[in-house]
């Protein structure tokens, strides 16, 4: 009888633990979002998203952060493209071309696990060193390359985890129908689409919000870059500079910029989920 009682106690305690952790995570999350909303909403205006910072913007005069919004979007599109083109073929190769227990595969996974944990400032410094070597100055291009380095391990590892879980029946079924490996990959990609979207979202979330990587590499400017060789402003750095201002109004604008950044990620997230569910409705 006592044992039976213990069983039920165990069940209760574990349930309470789970509820507690859910509540604490949610409250921290809402606290952050609440702070951004509370401090940012008053500073948010149409000017913020449509105007470039004018002279004296950082001292409380007129202007907006359009330079940083456009810069961040450019940057993330560029680095996402690079890392997509590099990591997707890599994941497909190690999962569907190489044998399951290949040494090469474990080396790749291991190195990406390490890269995963490298602090973003190191990628910034590495990107900077690479730029010095190539003779590029702080520019959109430099930022794109550095951020691509940063998000590639995230994308590769999260997509890889999904690819590993694919039932092996599917490749076998396709091959036995006489499909070539490439034809097989095309069908498998459909099945993996939601996983790929999650990987992209994780990567974008990390890449668009990171300040340290772009500090040396992308530079900062009050204008919108029109070529890859020009420096580009980014939202995280813009927030950083505004927060550093002694003027309270500018500090509030920093929160408004953070709100814009959150908004961009939210829009990206919802649209990605929408398209993913649209294209994978036949998922098995």
């Amino acid at each position, binding site marked *: 009888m006592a044992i039976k009682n213990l069983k039920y106690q165990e069940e209760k305690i574990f349930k309470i633990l789970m509820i507690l952790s859910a509540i604490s995570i949610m409250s921290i999350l809402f606290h952050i979002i609440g702070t951004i909303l509370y401090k940012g909403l008053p500073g948010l205006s149409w000017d913020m998203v449509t105007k470039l910072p004018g002279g004296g913007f950082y001292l409380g005069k007129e202007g907006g952060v359009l330079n940083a919004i456009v810069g961040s979007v450019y940057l993330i599109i560029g680095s996402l493209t690079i890392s997509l083109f590099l990591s997707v073929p890599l994941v497909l190769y190690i999962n569907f071309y190489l044998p399951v227990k290949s040494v090469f595969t474990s080396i790749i996974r291991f190195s990406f696990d390490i890269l995963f944990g490298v602090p973003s400032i190191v990628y910034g410094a590495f990107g900077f060193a690479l730029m010095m070597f190539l003779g590029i100055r702080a520019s959109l291009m430099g930022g794109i390359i550095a951020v691509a380095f940063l998000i590639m391990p995230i994308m590769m590892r999260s997509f890889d985890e999904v690819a590993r879980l694919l039932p092996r*029946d599917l490749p076998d079924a396709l*091959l*036995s129908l006489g499909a070539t490996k490439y034809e097989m990959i095309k*069908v498998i990609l459909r099945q993996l689409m939601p996983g790929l979207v999650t990987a992209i979202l994780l990567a974008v979330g990390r890449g668009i919000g990171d300040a340290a990587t772009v500090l040396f590499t992308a530079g900062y400017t009050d204008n919108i870059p029109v070529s890859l060789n020009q420096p580009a402003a980014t939202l995280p750095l813009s927030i950083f500079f505004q927060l550093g201002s002694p003027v309270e109004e500018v500090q509030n604008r920093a929160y408004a910029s953070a709100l814009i950044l959150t908004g961009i990620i939210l829009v990206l997230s919802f649209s990605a989920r929408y398209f993913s569910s649209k294209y994978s409705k036949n998922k098995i």
Partner: protein
Amino acid sequence: MKNIGAASLSENRVSDYNEITLRKLPASHSISIRDLNVFIGNNHILNDINLTIPEKSITCIIGPSGCGKSTLLKTLNRMHDETPDVRIEGEVYVDDENIYGNNINVIDIRKKMGLLAQRPCPLPMSIFDNVAYGPRIHGLKKRKAINQTVIQYLQYVGLWDEVRERIRTSASSLSIGQQQRLCLARGLAIEPEYILGDEATSALDPISTRKIEEMFLKLKEKYTVILVTHTLRQAKRIADHIVFMYMGRIIESGPTEEFFNNPKDKLTKDYLSGSFS
């Protein structure tokens, strides 16, 4: 490909497709295996297999788990190519051509073999596209021809009336028995000469199993069917020839009746009497 509804599909139903118009079989239509040895790593999985599979009949490969039945089946469509450290020695002649010889196109071999796996694995596409997939990758382009093929094979496996209203919906919405018949239709649509079944009914309920078995009986009029099964009763019900394997060797093979009524080897007798399984 534009979205064709079920309505426009049925307009294509110009004639009764119940009779499958098979292309002419090659003069020699047979599988014969000579001195086949298969190693996976250091394990000798198949040992000196010599076997001729009679055409247009059902051959059931039976034997206890791990005896190499599935490995033998996989050598027939060269699916071992996908696994590393498999070594294959010997010859497998399909239509008088050694499929392990030089200058063999694996795709051609796999096209000749329609495989029905243990568990149905529909492709992540609609019911229609599942059947159309094979013909499409093998070069069928005309929409009308594709429609015709899909309807023909769905009818052949008796699925057409069940799915015609939802031909554009996901194949995973079908029940598992329907999925298995869909996989059969998908395999038939590439116009194979041989049907391989790897315990094709072991995941199914009795009614679906019966449907698939009836399918095999119908198929043997036109195809050579090779099944791996571990239910003796199934072998008894549908097989024309039995191959009994044990520990990677063929112990005994012969016509079903003779095999069950008058087994020659002691191991066979023990297996049939249920001493081991």
